[in-house]
């Protein structure tokens, strides 16, 4: 009932000085040098090489019909894969974060699998399932439907590779938000849909967008998986990264870098968006 008072002696606190200035400057310079060498220089190289044959060369590379069809296919792929994974991400996050059920951790681990699989294997598995010798290959070829070495294969492989992005982002965000606000909405008379549209969705919108940005960037840039399933048919099954490879292997370096510069611009934009959205989602999870 009575607790003995603990003896508390005030510690003598010596204020720690930050690292000495020369150390700070030296380490900062080293770090900046490393960042410059490893990360910034390759980016700069892309743009410099892209204009190696002048503005005219750049324009003709970017505006060639093959580049255009690659852009079209890349956008088509993104247009299918990203919405699919977004809907999945919301469903998965809703089930995982708002309910208690057995095997939840296993489900979360399974969702992350595609991040641990080599891109090449991500393509291979669809070849095994839908390829000529695959499980469903015969059925599809009988019905004159081509999946592998065609657009559906590219979309499938891209969907696999970008599968966890939205789900993962939403799971961590919604986990931190809990279920209080949804419950409050229900007690105040909201229906399930009203709760979702008026409370849940507005609360996660920035996090959702963040996941979509990451997913889109990866979907546009995916190379290995798509390379395995595409068949490299010019003007038909070439996405932008595959087109870069073809131009490069044909020693059309400036052309390859010109197309690469398009992808790099998108990468830089997605980085900027990511930073902005990180700030916004930080506020959401408070």
């Amino acid at each position, binding site marked *: 009932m009575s607790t003995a008072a603990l003896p508390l002696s005030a510690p003598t606190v010596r204020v720690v000085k930050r690292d000495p200035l020369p150390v700070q400057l030296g380490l900062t310079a080293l770090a900046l040098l490393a960042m410059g060498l490893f990360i910034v220089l390759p980016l700069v190289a892309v743009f410099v090489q892209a204009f190696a044959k002048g503005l005219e060369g750049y324009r003709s590379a970017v505006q060639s019909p093959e580049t255009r069809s690659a852009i079209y296919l890349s956008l088509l792929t993104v247009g299918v894969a990203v919405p699919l994974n977004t809907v999945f991400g919301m469903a998965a996050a809703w089930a995982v974060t708002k309910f208690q059920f057995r095997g939840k951790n296993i489900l979360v681990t399974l969702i992350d699998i595609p991040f641990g699989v080599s891109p090449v294997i991500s393509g291979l598995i669809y070849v095994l399932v839908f390829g000529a010798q695959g499980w469903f290959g015969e059925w599809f070829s009988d019905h004159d439907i081509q999946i592998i070495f065609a657009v559906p294969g590219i979309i499938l492989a891209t969907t696999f590779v970008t599968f966890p992005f939205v789900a993962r982002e939403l799971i961590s965000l919604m986990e931190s938000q809990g279920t209080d606000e949804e*419950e409050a909405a229900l007690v*105040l008379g909201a229906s399930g849909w009203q709760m979702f549209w008026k409370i849940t969705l507005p609360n996660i919108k920035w996090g959702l967008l963040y996941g979509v940005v990451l997913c889109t960037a990866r979907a546009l840039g995916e190379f290995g998986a798509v390379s395995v399933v595409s068949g490299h048919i010019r003007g038909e099954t070439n996405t932008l990264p595959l087109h870069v490879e073809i131009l490069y292997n044909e020693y059309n370096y400036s052309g390859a870098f010109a197309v690469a510069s398009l992808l790099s611009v998108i990468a830089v934009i997605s980085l900027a968006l990511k930073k902005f959205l990180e700030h916004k989602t930080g506020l959401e999870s408070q």
Partner: protein
Amino acid sequence: MSIEVDHIRKTYGTFEALQDVSLRIESGELVALLGPSGSGKTTLLRIIAGLDVPDSGTIRLNDEDATNSKARDRQVGFVFQHYALFRHLTVFENVAFGLRLRPKATRPSEEDIRGRVRKLLELIQLDWLGDRYPNQLSGGQRQRVALARALAVEPRVLLLDEPFGALDAKVRKELRRWLRRLHDELHVASVFVTHDQEEALEVADRVAIMNHGRIEQVGTPIEVYDNPASAFVYQFLGDVNLFHGRPEAAEAAAATIGYVRPYELDVARHSGATNGAVVASIRHIASAGPVVRLELMREDNGSSLDAEISRDRYRELALSVGDKVEVTPRNLRTFPSAHIS
């Protein structure tokens, strides 16, 4: 509107959160569910609100079976422990939320909604904060907005989960008095959950003390304080000293434990003769405040006792640390099979 819970059970896996709980709350009554964490009080509140589903038992609201009705149909106002304000809506829109949800046929006009929200904001004295977002408010302000939001839908019952738990001591005291006055104006049945016995005893008409998923005792603050039904209730409502038997009845010492509050101990200077009183020495004196607290050690068995005496008595006795005193319990209680858990 009355609330009645009847033989409610609820388990989470192997943990029994509520074991056969029954309670009736009349219209206009303010009842506190008091207990330590894990005693099931929040679970009971959530079951009344329809936020949790009981394994068995019945809930009646206004004497109608509401066990299977959904939370949205129960017309309860619920104030969450951490307020659960909608972070993307302004204070005004938070309060208006429940009204705006209604189907067109029963929804008040925009003008009416605005009028009602404004009135509620005035009631909670925050009409000047309507355009702010929840994260721009202090804890006490959020608390009041949560209450206004719950009241906007004109609930039949008002349920509050640890309504003052996250607030600092001063705001807490102000808000609970305000809640009492508000309740008196509203004429609804209100239930609030708390682990603070002072809060429960001060505000509530009746207090239900819960422990391990059971209601140990229900009664007015005076009843439960003066006539505690169990050792648990007694020790939960205030500081306690344990007396292991009496010196002259040594053979019974193992069986009986007496309970006495610190202010129910008479303290006198030790005269030398043993006249039935317990002899103890003073280990510490806390003399600041309205009463003087003495930390004592019994001479016979070395256990410690707390005593509270008035300042006058303290001055009269002129006590100092190390002095020997005689302690006589004025009001020793015993409970059958008394265990403090």
